[in-house]
């Protein structure tokens, strides 16, 4: 299994989302957590980038961080998988290794 990439900063604050997406191979996983969950919201200027990633990669978003920020699950990009911390742990063990894009 390829790598799990994690992104924890807002795509409007940092270019981490861009840097990460430039380096994911087909089949790698991407987890949005902390402020990174803002990239999961539909209708933003980065939504198309995230949707494009879905064709080759699974994109996950940490539910507790979504809720903490008052974002609604129904407003998230379709096709993203919401996970909790237990799910986060499962992803870490399912993929071969983790790269945290800080």
């Amino acid at each position: 299994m390829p790598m799990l990439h994690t992104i924890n900063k807002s795509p409007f604050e940092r270019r981490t989302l861009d840097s990460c997406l430039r380096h994911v191979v087909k089949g790698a996983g991407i987890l949005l957590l902390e402020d990174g969950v803002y990239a999961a919201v539909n209708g933003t200027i980065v939504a198309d980038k995230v949707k494009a990633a879905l064709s080759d990669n699974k994109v996950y978003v940490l539910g507790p961080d979504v809720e903490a920020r008052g974002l609604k699950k129904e407003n998230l990009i379709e096709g993203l998988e919401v996970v909790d911390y237990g799910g986060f742990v499962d992803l870490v063990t399912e993929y071969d290794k983790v790269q945290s894009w800080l």
Partner: protein
Amino acid sequence: MAEPWEEEAEGPVRKFMYVNRRAPYGTIYALESLEVVLIAAAFEQDVSLVFMDDGVYQIQKGQNTEGIGVKNFSPTYRALEGYDVEKLYVEKESLESRGMTTDDLVVPVQVLDKGQLAALMEEQEVILSF
């Protein structure tokens, strides 16, 4: 008695990659990640060092820190070879978007494009970001 770095490495040798994406001096990450690399050298793992995004600025030539009153640690990158850390990579797109070439760098590096770098990242077992 053999020095620590002269003893044969016991145990597994894993592929470690250190990803440097931040500029020097504005934050401490560049300096402290270099400290990890130097200490880690004693463990004789298979180490790759990557400079991408603003990380390419860490190895920019001609740093003079007198005016800001902090230590100039850029010469340390030249010492890495002596620690058997020889696999230094720079991302092509990061250099070009900053108007830089390898002539601007303080150490010899291998330039990889984003696809090559992505493939190299996938080969690693442990990836450290700071």
